């Protein structure tokens, strides 16, 4: 498999840019900038408010703090950090999220490969049934699964959330990977088989590497969903091993039962979204043209 060399690709991109009519390019920039402003505005509001006292937040708009006197303070951030337990919870979040991201990717990749490149009766129907499981509300699964974990004596262990998140994440993972693997060019696999490659070799040498963008996208989403999950962790870990609970539970509980302390949610949100953003940035480099087999087909 050969990708289009980068240099050639860059030339192609340049040529395309030059070819666009000027007014069209202005439209592109304008649309993007407007969308970016709309998308950032709510978050900027939270960011500014996270730096203000609860009294200020209640009495004037966040934008008033953009001009002096700003009255900005780091009090809310230090209050969140002093609350304690966040460090342990951060480690727990990592312990929950990383394995629960890796396992379903492998399991889904095997199934997706079978669904896209192996023939068996009832394939499409089975596949659609798998995708249809996306609609199952997780809350309806809690009771029987927790019962099972309890009987096995593993309730509260990290293992339970790894397994559960794998199960819950598979329908989407299989859907996404099958769609991508299914669009890979048939010739690649045919020539590999002619060269005597086994399905395992074809999968590991061809299908997996060519699916890197889809796997990267999947890894990002699975990571995010689990990182931001509160309920699954609370149900499977909370009753027996609260010391295993992730950041989301600790953060939600910065607020007391009457809603007091809500001004701490903003700072906590920024602390907790830092890592998912790092994951996104570091995986974003896999979304570049030419990394997949798309080039081969053309």
């Amino acid at each position: 498999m050969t990708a289009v060399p980068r240099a050639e690709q860059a030339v192609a991109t340049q040529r395309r840019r030059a070819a666009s009519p000027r007014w069209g390019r202005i439209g592109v920039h304008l649309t993007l900038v407007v969308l970016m402003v709309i998308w950032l505005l709510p978050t900027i509001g939270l960011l500014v408010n996270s730096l203000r006292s609860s009294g200020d937040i209640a009495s004037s708009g966040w934008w008033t703090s953009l001009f002096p006197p700003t009255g900005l303070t780091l009090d809310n951030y230090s209050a969140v950090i002093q609350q304690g337990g966040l460090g342990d919870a951060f480690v727990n979040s990592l312990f929950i999220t990383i394995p629960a991201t890796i396992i379903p990717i492998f399991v889904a990749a095997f199934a997706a490969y079978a669904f896209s490149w192996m023939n068996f009766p009832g394939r499409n129907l089975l596949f659609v049934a798998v995708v249809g499981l996306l609609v199952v509300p997780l809350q309806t699964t809690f009771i029987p699964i927790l019962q099972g974990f309890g009987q096995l004596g593993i309730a509260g262990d990290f293992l339970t959330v790894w397994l559960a998140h794998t199960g819950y994440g598979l329908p989407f993972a299989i859907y996404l990977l099958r769609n991508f693997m299914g669009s890979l060019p048939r010739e690649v696999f045919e020539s590999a088989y002619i060269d005597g490659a086994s399905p395992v070799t074809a999968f590991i040498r061809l299908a997996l590497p060519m699916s890197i963008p889809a796997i990267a996208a999947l890894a990002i989403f699975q990571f995010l969903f689990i990182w931001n999950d509160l309920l699954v962790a609370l149900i499977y870990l909370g009753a027996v091993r609260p010391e295993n609970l992730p950041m989301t539970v600790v953060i939600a509980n910065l607020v007391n039962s009457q809603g007091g302390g809500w001004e701490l949610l903003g700072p906590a949100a920024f602390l907790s979204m830092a890592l998912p953003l790092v994951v996104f940035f570091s995986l974003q480099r896999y979304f570049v043209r030419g990394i997949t087999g798309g080039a081969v087909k053309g």
Partner: protein
Amino acid sequence: MDGRLITAIVVLVGVPGALLGYIYLTEILLKFAPERARPRLRPWLWMLPALLFLFLFLIFPTILTILRSFQGALEGTFVGLDNYVWFFTSGDALISLRNSALWVVFLTIIAVGLGLLVAVLVDRVRYESFAKSVIFVPLAISMTAAGVIWRFMFDYQSPGQPQTGTLNGILSVFGLGPVSFLQVDTLALNTIFLIVVMAWMWTGFAMVILSAALKGISTELLEAGRVDGATEWQVFRGIVFPLLLPTVAVVSTTIVITALKAFDIVYVMTNGNFSTDVVASRMIKESFTFGNIGHGSALAVILLLAIIPIMALNISRFRAQEAIR
């Protein structure tokens, strides 16, 4: 030594190793099978881990849910279709069904439409990474935080008071408002505002997947179109969009289902008041707040049934995809 350390090593090294080992093992096992049976057995071995997980964590509980939907609040009391009759005859059923339909239509149109737009447009600018990150940020925000963020957006202060909500702040610049956004139930506008919150979060999802697919389209194909003198729009309609279509379908299906299941935003922001209730939020409420798991299960089954048409569309699409590849 800390038990967690050992676990970490086992999981990070052991699990991928074990899973890959399993796939190699299947080939060894297949050697013992008669040659003609191998192609028929192989897919099942490859799917086995996934099917096991799916059965234990989703299929088995769903079967229980379906059975439970024919029982009353107390487990074991068979009530036939009572739970379904209850829902369709309760006064608020129509409102929550209507709202769920609005969620499906508008969330999908907004998130997929804007996601596609951004994915296509960022492909042509130098600040691609930055622009994509900006659209992606809301997805990294937890529901708890999203609720707080949008309370600041929709915040309302009585007329004459300085406005503290971003949207009312903008309106007041033009001498308009203040509007209590979540109370406007004419034309179900408040439901639309709640959908906007979700769309703000999920557009990034559509964009990331569509953008990844876009990068898979060969440059030569596009260049060929341009050399033939096609305009950018014609290239998009004639070459790019058809190739993206399978991915658009994947993203749309996922977002339709997300819309059906969405309840957190409704629950956190209005608790279904002011005619903003949806089927999913009623399901959660019935099961866990009111303790009527029979009602809740029936609502879950209604959600399951609602996706059958979309799944049927998916089947016909796969057939088409396989015919052309």
